[in-house]
């Protein structure tokens, strides 16, 4: 038995019978898709790369989801009983469950784990209180963003991290290599990537989340503020509940055994404490955009730095003084001297601004490009993110967006577009 597995079992972290993928054994064999074995495959992609199925694949199909290929996974785009706008507004008003099992979960253990994570990301991991965590960025030597991730410093001797599905392959290679380097220098660190056949991840998001979950937890959610985590049971299913999400609403992400994902979803959907519905990737995208949250591949990538991406706040104070993270010379230089382009939010009228549309100043001079955009179901206006030249990045700056050879008027605004509704547990202390 691996030492890592022993730690997890000792502390009760739920692992399936087959454990998890050890990077040095079979680093990329994540998730043999059940759909590949049984169900009919979507015609277009079946031959080349077989899209993988999450543990909830059959559940989605039986709930009449429109399934699409996303980052190599068959994921629900939306469900037949709701339009995107319905699903979006339902999440803002009630609560929705999103299957996010396609995201890559990993466990980092060993005595030097905090120091190790600091060697690959921008956060002050060492001073992160137990059972809490942060949004962080894995950076490259140029100061670009390899991926964004959520890490949780659990009280059980390891870090729990969640990486983007679209970056999973390169992240696993990158982190496995970094771990191997670290081990060679005599440090104690291990990483294990959880397999989707073993582990699912559900995001339960919306203002009615707490009342729905409260009925099934022994630990009160009052003691679990935003960006805190606990290993617990939910309706008798062992799971890790982390208060975070990608919608701007109060919400949690629940990491549970793959076999428990469907019964847990069914239990939550049947709740009498709140109106719970399934939601797909389409609503997830419009919700995160209203919340001003970046989508990797659209709004951030390996060619933009945290400073350009307006994500400098993720860089720990101590890290700003000490440096020592990949690309820190470039990034700290940018913090001091400024950057020429910045990510901003834009509200516009007329035809919606979409990814790739050019942004100009009022004289028609090109100043940037839209990276994400949609009509906001909550605001009834068009919202977008763009990278624009720094002099045009001030709030209130009037810009034009070129849509099908016509200009629409827009204005740079502060994000989030829709105020966040996170739970900060004033007056309560984390468990």
């Amino acid at each position: 038995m691996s030492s890592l597995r022993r730690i997890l079992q000792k502390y009760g972290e739920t692992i399936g019978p087959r454990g998890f993928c050890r990077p040095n054994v079979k680093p990329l064999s994540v998730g043999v898709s059940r759909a590949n074995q049984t169900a009919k495959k979507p015609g277009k992609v079946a031959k080349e790369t077989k899209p993988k199925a999450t543990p909830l694949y059959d559940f989605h199909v039986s709930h009449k989801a429109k399934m699409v290929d996303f980052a190599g996974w068959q994921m629900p785009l939306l469900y037949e009983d709701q339009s995107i706008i319905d699903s979006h507004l339902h999440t803002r008003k009630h609560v929705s469950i999103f299957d996010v099992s396609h995201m890559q979960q990993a466990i980092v253990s060993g005595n030097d784990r905090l120091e190790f994570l600091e060697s690959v990301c921008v956060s002050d991991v060492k001073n992160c209180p137990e059972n809490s965590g942060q949004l962080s960025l894995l950076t490259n030597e140029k100061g670009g963003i390899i991926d964004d991730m959520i890490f949780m410093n659990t009280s059980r001797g390891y870090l729990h991290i969640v990486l983007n599905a679209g970056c999973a392959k390169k992240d696993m290679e990158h982190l496995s290599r970094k771990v191997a380097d670290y081990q060679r220098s005599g440090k104690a660190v291990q990483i294990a990537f959880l397999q989707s056949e073993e582990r699912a991840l559900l995001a339960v998001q919306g203002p009615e989340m707490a009342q729905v979950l409260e009925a099934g937890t022994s630990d009160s959610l009052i003691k679990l503020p935003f960006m805190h985590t606990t290993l617990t049971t939910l309706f008798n299913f062992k799971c890790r509940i982390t208060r975070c999400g990608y919608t701007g609403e109060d919400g949690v992400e629940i990491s549970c055994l793959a076999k428990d994902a469907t019964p847990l979803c069914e239990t939550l959907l049947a709740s009498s404490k709140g109106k719970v519905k399934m939601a797909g990737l389409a609503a997830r995208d419009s919700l995160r955009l209203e919340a001003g949250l970046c989508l990797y591949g659209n709004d951030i990538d390996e060619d933009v730095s945290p400073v350009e991406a307006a994500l400098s706040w993720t860089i720990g104070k101590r890290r700003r003084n000490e440096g020592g993270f990949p690309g820190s010379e470039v990034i700290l230089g940018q913090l001091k001297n400024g950057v020429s382009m910045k990510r901003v939010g834009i509200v516009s009228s007329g035809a919606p601004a979409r990814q790739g549309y050019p942004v100009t100043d009022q004289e028609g001079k090109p100043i940037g490009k839209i990276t994400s955009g949609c009509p906001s179901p909550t605001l009834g206006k068009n919202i977008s993110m763009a990278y624009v030249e720094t002099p045009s990045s001030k709030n209130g700056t009037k810009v034009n967006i070129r849509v099908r050879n016509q200009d629409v008027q827009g204005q740079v605004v502060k994000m989030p577009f829709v105020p966040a509704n996170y739970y900060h547990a004033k007056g309560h202390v984390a468990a």
Partner: protein
Amino acid sequence: MASTVWRVGVACFHRATDVTGRISRPTSRLRFSTSSFALAERLFTKKHEWILMDKEEGTVGITDYAQKALGDIVFAQLPDPGNEVTKGVECGALESVKAASEIYSPVTGTVIEKNVAAEEKPQLINKSCYKDGWLYKVHLSDPSELDALMKEKGYDDFVKALQDEDH
């Protein structure tokens, strides 16, 4: 990138514009090569537009399959009266929360009228895609183009085949 896999048709737009604003009407009566025409039967394209003829004028809309695939339509950009449209070429756009989708004209001709009500209230296209949610009316410059379009049965079979592929 990963994020855009499921987005449909956020494309480069090449607009065939003619802003003379003059709508020319032919002096001679048009000769139609399709006999089904007299029955004012809807004809369909593979891009999911329909056209319904009334004498020399065709009313253009999108099909039920298309409106369902788009979802809630929140913005409609329709060709203005006087615009020249070309068969198979983009002449406007319908936008849902998730994507912008082009409208491809089923025929070549001059736009006579656009559905202002549908521009003002794009949900009309979802609610009534074959009637109140029509898009524009066009005066055909070459009615023989209609011969290449599908009749209802042909289109239904085409959609069934597409749906079969999807599942």
